[in-house]
C-alpha cells in the first residue's frame, strides 16, 4: 500500500525524528509513505476567514497531487493535518472557496475535495488496524504508563476533522495499548498547550502546559506522547525534564523493533 505523504516544514528540521520514526515504522508495517513533490508549507494555522484563498492554495496543491496519483494523503504533524483536512473540507463543501481556489490553480480538472486526508494515527487505526499493529509488535512496552496528549489541532472542530470524539478521544490510548503500554487517561489531554502564543506570551503558554502536565502526572503518567512538534516544544518548557515528552512515532518504532535502524 502506498500513500502520498505530506511531511511539513518542521519535520524536515527540528522534528526530523518524528518523520524518520514514522517512515521506518511504516516500512515495518508494510506500507509506504511517498513524499509528494515540491510541497509547500501549509502555513501552520488554518486561515479562518471565509474570504482567504491564497493562503489555502499550498494545501490544495498537495491535495491535488495526491488526487492525481490516486492516493490518500497522509500527514503527521498535527498542524499540517488540521490545515490540510480543513482546506479539503472547504474544497469539498464550500462552493465559493472551491470556485475561487480553482480559478487560481488553473488545473486540468478542478479539484473538489476528492482526496482522502489521513493522519498517520488514522492509518494505524483505520487501515492497518490496532489489532494488526499489536501482532507486529516485537518489543512491547509493557508496564510503561503513558499519557496521550492530543491538544486541539487534531480534534477540533470535531465535525470537520472527524478524527475522534473531540471531548473524549481514544485513538492514542488505543495506540498505547497496541504497543503494549498502559494508557493514562487525564482530563487535560485535549486542552490547548498555548500553540503559537508561546512565541510572545511565554508565561501564558507555560501556565497552560503546567496544568496539562500536572493533570497527567496526577493521574500517574510517567511519560507524555504527542504528534505535534509545537506541543512538544511547549510541554517541554513545563516539564523541565521531570517526565519525558516523546513523539508517538518513536515509541512505535521502538515497539516494532526498528528504532535502532533510524538515524537522525
Amino acid at each position, binding site marked *: 500500500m502506498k500513500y502520498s505523504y505530506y511531511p511539513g516544514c518542521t519535520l524536515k528540521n527540528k522534528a526530523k525524528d518524528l518523520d524518520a520514526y514514522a517512515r521506518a515504522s511504516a516500512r515495518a508495517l508494510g506500507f509506504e509513505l511517498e513524499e509528494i513533490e515540491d510541497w509547500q508549507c501549509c502555513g501552520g494555522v488554518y486561515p479562518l476567514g471565509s474570504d482567504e484563498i491564497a493562503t489555502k492554495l499550498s494545501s490544495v496543491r498537495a491535495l491535488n497531487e495526491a488526487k492525481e496519483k490516486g492516493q490518500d494523503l497522509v500527514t503527521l504533524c498535527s498542524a499540517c493535518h488540521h490545515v490540510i483536512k480543513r482546506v479539503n473540507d472547504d474544497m469539498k463543501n464550500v462552493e465559493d472557496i472551491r470556485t475561487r481556489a480553482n480559478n487560481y490553480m488553473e488545473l486540468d480538472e478542478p479539484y473538489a475535495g476528492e482526496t482522502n486526508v489521513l493522519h498517520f494515527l488514522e492509518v494505524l487505526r483505520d487501515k492497518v488496524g490496532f489489532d494488526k499493529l499489536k501482532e507486529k509488535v516485537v518489543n512491547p512496552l509493557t508496564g510503561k504508563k503513558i499519557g496521550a496528549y492530543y491538544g486541539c489541532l487534531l480534534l477540533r472542530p470535531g465535525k470537520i476533522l472527524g478524527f475522534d470524539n473531540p*471531548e473524549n478521544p481514544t485513538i492514542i490510548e488505543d495506540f498505547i495499548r497496541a504497543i503494549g503500554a498502559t494508557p493514562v487517561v487525564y482530563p487535560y489531554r485535549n486542552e490547548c498547550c498555548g500553540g503559537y502564543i508561546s512565541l510572545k506570551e511565554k508565561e501564558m503558554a507555560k501556565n497552560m502546559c503546567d496544568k496539562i502536565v500536572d493533570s497527567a502526572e*496526577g493521574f*500517574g503518567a510517567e511519560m507524555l506522547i504527542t504528534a505535534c512538534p509545537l506541543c512538544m516544544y511547549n510541554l517541554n518548557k513545563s516539564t523541565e525534564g521531570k517526565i519525558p515528552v516523546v513523539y508517538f512515532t518513536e515509541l512505535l518504532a521502538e515497539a516494532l523493533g526498528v528504532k535502532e535502524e533510524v538515524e537522525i
Partner: protein
Amino acid sequence: MQRIGVFVCHCGSNIAATVDVKKVVEMAAKEPGVVHAEDYQYMCSEAGQAKIAAAIKEKNLTGIVVCSCSPRMHENTFRGAAERAGLNPYMVEIANIREHCSWIHKDVEEATKKAVILARAAIAKVNLNTPLKPGESRVTKRALVIGGGIAGIQTALDIADAGYEVDIVEKTPSIGGRMSQLDKTFPTLDCSACILTPKMVEAAAHEKITIYTYSEVEKVSGFVGDFTVDIKKKARYVDANKCTGCGVCQEKCPSKKSLSEFNRGLNTRSAIYTPFAQAIPNVPVIDTEACIKMKTGKCGICSKVCQAGAVDYEQKDEIITEKYGAIVVATGFDTIKLDNYDEYAYNQSKDVITSLELERVMNAAGPTKGHLERLSDGKHPKEMVFIQCVGSRCADNRGKSYCSKICCMYTAKHAMLIRDKYPDVNVTVFYIDVRTPGKNFDEFYRRAVEDYGVNYIKGQVGKVIPQPDGKLLVQGVDLLDNKQILKEADMVVLATAIEPNPDVRKIATMLTASIDTNNFLTESHAKLRPVESPTAGVFLSGVCQGPKDIPETVAQAGAAAVKAIGLLAKDKLLTNPCTAKADELLCNGCSTCANVCPYGAISYEEKEVNDHGIRETRRIAVVNSALCQGCGACTVACPSGAMDLQGFSNRQIIAEVDAICR
C-alpha cells in the same frame, strides 16, 4: 351549467390589508358559471355564514367558492353553512387566499393577482363538482392507550369512568412510567409514589380496564372508529395467574448482575425481577439474556423455589388481536444519551449523573437507599454542582433545539431537597435562564434561593475536569461577574434534555400519525386541537406531544380522554365520501389498482356490462367505500383512467391546473 356563488372574506385586515378583495370579487364575477360574488369582513362569522345561506337560496346556487383562510381551518364551517341552506356540502370549495397568499406576500397588486388566480382555480373546480354523500361506519366502543405512565393511566381511568372499555399496552413489565422513578414532585414536594401508586392500583382494579404489560403494539390497521390492533404480549416466563408476588424467586436467583433499568443502571437486579416493589402487576419477568437456565439449560432455581409453580420456561410470545374505536398515544419520554457531551465527563466519572439518576439516588428505594452519596466511593458530598440545559436549546445537531421545560423546576426541587436534608452540602446551579412559568413555580424557585441558600450562577459550564483525588473541577463562567470560575465539586448533576420515547417513531408510522423534526407527535392544530393527532381517531397524551410537567400531562391526559369518549359515544361515523370509484366501462380488470391500495379496499367482480350495445361479462374493479380512505394511489396506477377519485377527480384537478396556467 353550475350556478356558482363566490364569497371573499376580508378576515379583518388579515386578507384585506394585502389583497384587494373588491377586485377579487370583480374578477371572480366574470368567471364562467359565477352568478353571484360578494365580500364580507368575516365570512366565518354567523353574519357571514348567513350571507352565504341567503345567496344560496336567493340565487339558487349549485356551488360556492369561499376565498378565505385555509380549508384546514374553515372548510367544515362553510360546508355546514351550505348544508344548512340546502346545498350539498361537497359543492363547496375554498380558495386559500390567507395562508397561501395575503400572509406571505407584501405587494398588494401581486397578492391580489394571485388571489384572483386561486379563486379562478376553485371556481373551475367547483364547476365540475358533484354532490357527494358520506357513508356510515360503525364505532367499536373500546379504546386503546399506548403507554402506561401517568399520562396513559390517567387517560385510561377517565375513559373507563365514562363507561367504556380501555386497554393499556405498556412495554415494560409494570405500569407507572417515568413518574414511578421520581422521588418527590414539584412544586409541592409530595412523594411521587404516594400520589402515583393509588392511581396504578385503581387502574389495575378497574373493571373496564385491561392492562397488557411487557407488551407492544405490533400492527395497526383500519381507521377511526374501527381500528384493528395486534398486540404482542412478550413471554414473561411466569404465569401471572399463578404467581402470588411473594418475591422468593428474585431473592434466590443466582444471576444478579444485570443493571436495573428502573434504577437507571445505578445498581443491579436479578435475572427474574419485578422492576420495583410497587410494580403492577406484581408478577416478575425473566430476562432471557441474563437467566442462567435460559442460556445454559442449567439452574432452574426460581422454578424450584416457587411454591405456586408459576415459573414456566416454555412460555411463548402471544399475539392478541383486538378492535378499537379510538387510540390514545401516551408513549412519554426518556433523557437523551450524553455521548455528545463528553466535556461534562458523564462517561468518565461515576459522580457526574443525570437528574433522573439523582431522583433514584434520593429515593429511599433507590441504589443508595435514599442517602445522598457519591456513586464512586459512597462518600457524602460537600459540594454539588448542577448544570442546566444539557442538550436542550441547541442549534448545533449535538442536542435538541427545544427547551425541555421541566429542568428548571426539578433542579430547584433537587437543590432545595438537598439543602433541606443535608444543610452541610453546598449547592451551586449554573443556568442560562431560569424558566418558571406555572402556578407557584417562581415562588418555589425563589424559595430555593432565598430560604435554602442555593447558589445560582448565570453562565454555562465549559468542562468538568475529574481530578486525581476523585474530585471534579467544574470550569464555568459567571456572566454577571464576568469571571471564569473553577469550582471543586464532589458531584455534578446534569439537567439532561428529554426526548420522545424512541419507539414513538415506529408507533407513529403504524398509526400514520405525523411526527415533527424532534420526533414529537404533531397535534392537529397547535392551539385549537392540541390533543388530537391529524389522523382521525388518534389522540395524544403527555410528553409524546411535547415537553410537559406532571400537572400538564395529567390535564392533557384528561383532555385526550374526553376527545376519545366523544368519539366512542357515537354509534356511527360519517365516512369521507371522497373515495375512489371505477368506471366499469373503462376498467380493464387488470388488478394494478388493487396492488397499490393500502386498505385492501378494491376487489374484482365478474359483471355483465353493456358497453355501447355490446353485452359481455367482464372482470371489473369494485371499491369498498367504507374501506377506501381516498388517497388516490389507484387512480394514477390505472392506465385507462377508469379509476377516479370523487372530490378530487382527474378533470377537477386538470381544471385547476388549467385555471392556474391560463
